[in-house]
C-alpha cells in the first residue's frame, strides 16, 4: 500500500491511499481526509472521501497547488497510525431481487453488456462461480456490508461486503454506461454494491430494487426530515430479501409516512473484525434483532 498524490486540474488534489480496495485503505483514507479538514488549511473548499481515496478541492488563488499537496502529505503519517474504529449503526435494507423494473431496464441496454444472452444476475453468478442465481443472491445478502463511500449522485452509498477477500463478489461495470437506471436499484460494480438514490445514468450491474427511499430533496419522508441524504460513510447495511407482496406493502407504508427503517447502534473495530469475521458479523446482526 503506497499513497499516490496527483492533481485533478488546477483546483483538486487527488489522494489514492491504495489502488486496491481494503478496509485498511478505507480507514487510512478517512483518517487523512479528517485530518485535512481539522487542519483548517486556508483555501480548502471541499473534501470528498471515497473508498480508498479522497479528493480535496482548493482555491489556487489562496494556496498554491504544490503547497496544498505538501500540507496533505505532511499529515499522512498520523493518518497511517490512527485507530481503525467507528461508532456507527447497522441498518436493515429490504431488497426485491430480480424485480421487473431493473429487468426491463437491463434488457433495454443489453448491447452495452458483456453478456447480452442473459440477465445481469445470470452473468454475475456465473463469473463468480455460483451454480445458481439463488446461491449468488444468498451470498449477496447473508453477510453485512460497510458503506465505504457516499457519492456519484445524490447520496448514493457504495457498500463493501464484510467478508474475507476470497469470498468477495466481483463483477465488471457495463462496457458502456447506461443512460437509465430505475430509482433505488441495488447495483454492483467491481467489489461494490450500491443503491441508486435517484433515476439516471449508471454503469453497475443491476440485481434488484429496494422500496426504501434514501434521498428526499423535499424532506417529506419521515426518516429524511433532518437531512435529505440517508447514508454516511461507516454505516453498516444488512440486506433483507423480500418478495413482490412485501415490496408493495413497504412501498405503501413509505407513502403513508409510517415506514421506519430498522436501525441499531453498533461499534465497528477493524482489528476485532479481522480477528473473527463471522463472529463479529453475527454480533452486528444480533443487534438488529433487538432493534
Amino acid at each position, binding site marked *: 500500500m503506497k499513497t499516490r498524490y496527483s492533481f485533478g486540474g488546477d483546483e483538486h488534489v487527488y489522494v489514492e491511499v491504495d489502488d486496491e480496495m481494503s478496509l485498511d485503505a478505507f480507514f487510512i483514507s478517512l483518517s487523512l481526509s479528517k485530518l485535512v479538514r481539522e487542519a483548517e488549511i486556508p483555501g480548502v473548499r471541499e473534501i470528498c472521501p471515497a473508498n480508498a481515496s479522497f479528493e480535496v478541492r482548493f482555491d489556487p488563488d489562496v494556496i498554491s497547488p504544490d503547497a496544498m499537496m505538501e500540507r496533505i502529505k505532511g499529515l499522512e503519517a498520523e493518518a497511517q497510525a490512527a485507530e481503525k474504529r467507528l461508532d456507527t449503526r447497522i441498518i436493515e435494507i429490504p431488497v426485491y431481487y430480480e424485480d421487473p423494473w431493473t429487468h426491463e431496464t437491463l434488457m433495454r441496454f443489453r448491447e452495452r453488456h458483456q453478456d447480452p444472452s442473459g440477465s445481469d444476475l445470470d452473468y454475475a453468478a456465473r463469473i463468480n462461480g455460483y451454480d445458481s442465481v439463488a446461491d449468488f443472491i444468498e451470498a449477496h445478502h447473508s453477510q453485512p456490508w460497510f458503506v465505504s463511500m457516499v457519492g456519484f449522485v445524490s*447520496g448514493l452509498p457504495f457498500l463493501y461486503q464484510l467478508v474475507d477477500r476470497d469470498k468477495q463478489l466481483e463483477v465488471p461495470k457495463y462496457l458502456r454506461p447506461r443512460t437509465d437506471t430505475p430509482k433505488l436499484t441495488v447495483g454492483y*460494480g467491481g*467489489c461494490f454494491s450500491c443503491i441508486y438514490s435517484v433515476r439516471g445514468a449508471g454503469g453497475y450491474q443491476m440485481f434488484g430494487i429496494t422500496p426504501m427511499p434514501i434521498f428526499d*430533496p423535499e424532506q417529506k419522508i419521515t426518516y429524511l426530515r433532518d437531512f435529505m441524504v440517508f447514508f454516511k460513510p461507516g454505516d453498516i447495511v444488512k440486506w433483507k430479501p423480500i418478495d413482490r407482496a412485501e415490496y408493495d406493502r413497504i412501498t405503501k407504508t413509505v407513502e403513508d409516512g409510517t415506514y421506519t427503517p430498522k436501525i441499531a447502534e453498533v461499534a465497528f473495530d477493524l482489528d476485532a473484525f479481522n480477528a473473527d469475521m463471522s463472529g463479529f458479523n453475527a454480533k452486528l446482526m444480533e443487534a438488529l434483532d433487538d432493534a
Partner: protein
Amino acid sequence: MTLEIVKPGLATSIQDLGRPGYFHLGIPEGGAMDRLALRAANLLVGNDEDAAGLEAVFLGPEIKFGAEMTVAVTGGEMPILLDGEPRDNWTSFNVMPGQTLSFGYLKAGARIYIAVSGGIATEPHLGSRSTYAIGALGGFDGRALAAGDVVPVGAAPLAEEGLSIPEALRRGPGKPAELRVLPGLYWHRLTEKSQAAFFDDAWTVAPEADRMGYRFRGGQPMEFVDREQPFGAGSDPSNIVDGCYSYGSIQVPGGLEPIVLHRDAVSGGGYFTLGAVISADMDLIGQLQPNAPVKFVRVDMEQALAARAERKQIIEQLRESLNQPG
C-alpha cells in the same frame, strides 16, 4: 414581480453560480455552465454577479413579463426579439408588463443566459437557486421550466438601458475549440502511444452532452498499460476502485469515448480519469454544440494557473467596462 414561461425551449433552467459544499454527498455544485456569461448578464442589469438567471440550451424560451424590468441576454448567439422587434445581445434593454421575449435560431455557441433586474427569486435550496434536475433540487420545483410556470423575480430598480459588454470580452470557443488539459489522476494507466494520440486526435462533441458531462468521439480507442487489475476495481482495464471525480475530470469508459464532467458532475465512480480540463476553460465547454470539433491541448500547472489568472482578468475588465460613465 414575475415572469411567465410561455414556451420553455428545449431545457431552460434557473441557474446561479452554484451550491458548493455538498459534493461529498454526491450533490454537485451545479450553476451556470458558462459562468462568465451569467456574470456578464447580471452585471448588465445591475444585479450581483451570483444572482440567479435563466440558462437556455440550443433553443430559446418565450417569456412574458409581468412587470417592468431590465433584461440582458449573453452567451451563445441567438437573435433576440421583444414583441417581434430585434434587440442586441450582451446589451441591457427595458421591458414593459405584457411584453414578450422570444428568440430566433441559435447561430453560435450552445447556451444563452437571460438575466432580469432583481434576479430570479425562487426559494434557494442548500444555499443556491440552481436547478439540479437529477436530484430534483433547486430551480422551479426541482426541474427545468415548463410552459405556464410563473417565476418570481426580485424587486429592484430598473438598470441603465443600452449598457453593453465590449466584443473583446465576450469569450466563446474557437473552431476547433481548444480545451486545455492538465494530465494527471490516472494518466499513468495509458500507454505513451495513447497519451500522445489523445492530444493529437481530432475529436467532436457527441450527442450525449449535457450539464452532467460532455462526451467526445472521433479519436482512436485507447490502450492501457498492462497490469493485473487491483482487487475491487472490476476486470476492464478502464476500471478503477471507485474514487472521486472532479469537475472537468476526463473519464474514458472502455477506453473509447472521453467524457468531461461539468457543473452537474457525478461525484465519483469506477472509470479511470486521465486528467482534467483546466478551470479557465470550463465555461467554453458549455458553449459547444454536438458535432463541434475539439482539440485537447496539453498544459502544465504553470500554464493552467496563468490561464486562470487571465480569465480572472476578463471578469475584472467586465466590471470595469460597466463602471465607465456611459
